[in-house]
């Protein structure tokens, strides 16, 4: 077989190898940026300006704010309209807790559809729903006690 054919085969094979690698990378890229936001009423609502959302009318009994029921900051609250809410000692937190056992970015409260979830953000001391330390986003309802450090939070109407 002629030298030139072998040369072409060699190049073609390297090209195939890299075409494969680059396609794999482009799939990863589209996986990163192309995720689909579920066409879910809750999300569409939250994207709307706050005034409109208030007018849209909430279901009876849906929670409206998070209240600190126990701990150093008892009585502080944050509206769920601004969800997702960050909870921690940091200055960017929606509820800022002066509690030595709370991490800077400790937990987050966010909604999926009608439900509210609390999610631990890799805090040092953990987030407890009831008596259980949570390892994944956990549903909370009205009155569920979420313990963060020495502080207890609840969803309120």
């Amino acid at each position, binding site marked *: *077989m002629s030298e030139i*054919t*072998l*040369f072409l*085969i*060699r*190049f*073609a*094979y*390297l090209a*195939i*190898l*890299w*075409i*494969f*690698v680059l*396609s*794999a*990378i482009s*799939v*990863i890229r*589209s*996986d990163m940026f*192309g*995720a*689909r*936001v*579920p066409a879910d009423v809750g*999300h569409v609502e*939250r994207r709307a300006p706050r005034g409109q959302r208030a007018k849209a009318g909430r279901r009876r*009994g*849906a929670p409206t704010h998070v209240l600190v029921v*126990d701990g150093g900051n008892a009585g502080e609250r944050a509206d769920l309209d601004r969800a*997702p809410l*960050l909870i921690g000692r940091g200055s960017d937190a929606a509820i800022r807790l002066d509690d030595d056992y709370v991490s800077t970015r400790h937990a*987050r409260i*966010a*909604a*999926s559809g*009608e*439900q509210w*979830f609390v*999610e631990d953000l890799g805090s*040092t001391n953990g987030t407890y729903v*009831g*008596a259980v330390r949570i*390892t*994944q*986003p*956990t*549903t909370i*309802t*009205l*009155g*569920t*006690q979420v*313990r963060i450090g020495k502080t*207890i939070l609840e969803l309120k109407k």
Partner: protein
Amino acid sequence: MSQNGSLMGFVHRRRRGAELFLLILSLFVGIGGYAAVGFGVQEKVPPDIIGYGGWLAALILGTHIIVRITAPYADPVLLPVVSALNGLGLAVIHRLDLARDKDFAAQQLMWMTIGVLLFAGTLLVLRDHRVLQRFTYTSGFVAIVLLLLPMLPVLGQDINGARIWIRIGPLGFQPGEVAKVLLVLAFAGYLVLHRDALALAGRRLLFLDLPRGRDLGPILAMWLVSLGVLVFQKDLGSSLLFFGLFLVLLYVATERPGWLVVGGSLFLAGAFLGYTLFGHVRQRFSIWLDPMSHYGEGTDDRGRQIVESMFGMGWGGLIGRGFGNGEPWRISYAESDFIFAVIGEELGLTGAMAVIVCYGLIVERGLRTALVCRDGFGKLVATGLACVFALQVFVVIGGVTKLIPLTGLTTPFLSYGGSSLVANWVIIALLLRISDQARRPVPDFSGDPELPDNAAEVTQVVKLEKS
């Protein structure tokens, strides 16, 4: 953090179509490589290309169908990358077979078939990776037993100075390859329970949080096991792999750099001990520092392998000699430990870089899975498995390119070797299972959303009094 970036903000797409597309491309890499070998060596399309290609395609499409059925949300890139590497490995082994009149490629294809069957079995049987957490201590125990098996007088076998093989009848097997998967499960299960004690207790020395003395137990035990592997089995690579794996998982679980310092110094101590006590470690070192003084007439000629490998890679240059135009048979064990050198010689730097990028993609997808995963055990297992790949590839390719002293480990998916191939396919099945769980949309946890007041009452019952 924006809503889109949050865990609950978006649903991962299934991407099975993208996976199929990449798998077909990966078949071009595998079968194209086989054809290119035929052209280069025998100047014709290999006569069995239909049978070989059909078999490979059937295996790969089989894995795709299994994933579609059992893990529809699994990562779309992992499987194609593995299939491309495996196909490329088969082609290179076939190329060496043609040069040396052996029949390793057919055996490797058989092992790949077994690997794919186990891959399918793992995905079919294991529907939730969290089940594995129950077998923490069992898998740890089995791993230790497997590591000890080659030491038994009848079963164990000394091959090339390392006692890492067992032989039952005609079948040879390296139990260490299975042990590494089990060790990941054992470490992850142990650390997910004990990480608080390991992370929080301790005293501060200078700027480092050093762990408590009694928490050092597991890491010391692991250090002794790795040293034992080094001493009794003379297997440098595996001991490095096990210890490094444990250290990385410990660090990931506790987020305490103190462990890295403790582990790093233990590693250095172990390496120094190995260097002073064992002739073969010293020899590896001296070959690494000056391979040329171990090459050619009048020397012990123990550096021949690494020197030939570097000659090969140097001769390969940027785009390689092309399949069939190199002389890879000059390297001993070219089909197993030194397969990367053959790729460097015949496909050049361009091909070698593509292979390294492929490994990088596997590791990246593993770590990405760990990030997205919702439970601590899954996170640690995914990190551990990705880390096994990263360490193993670093140790092997580093050894072949003389970046670090040579240690015997297989190049995942490329090297000839049944135990390693089968174990790595199972690792990929585990990673796909975890990523399927992680990328699945959040399931509906709550009870009846129509009765919020009722739900409130229920929670009142279990409400904790402030302690």
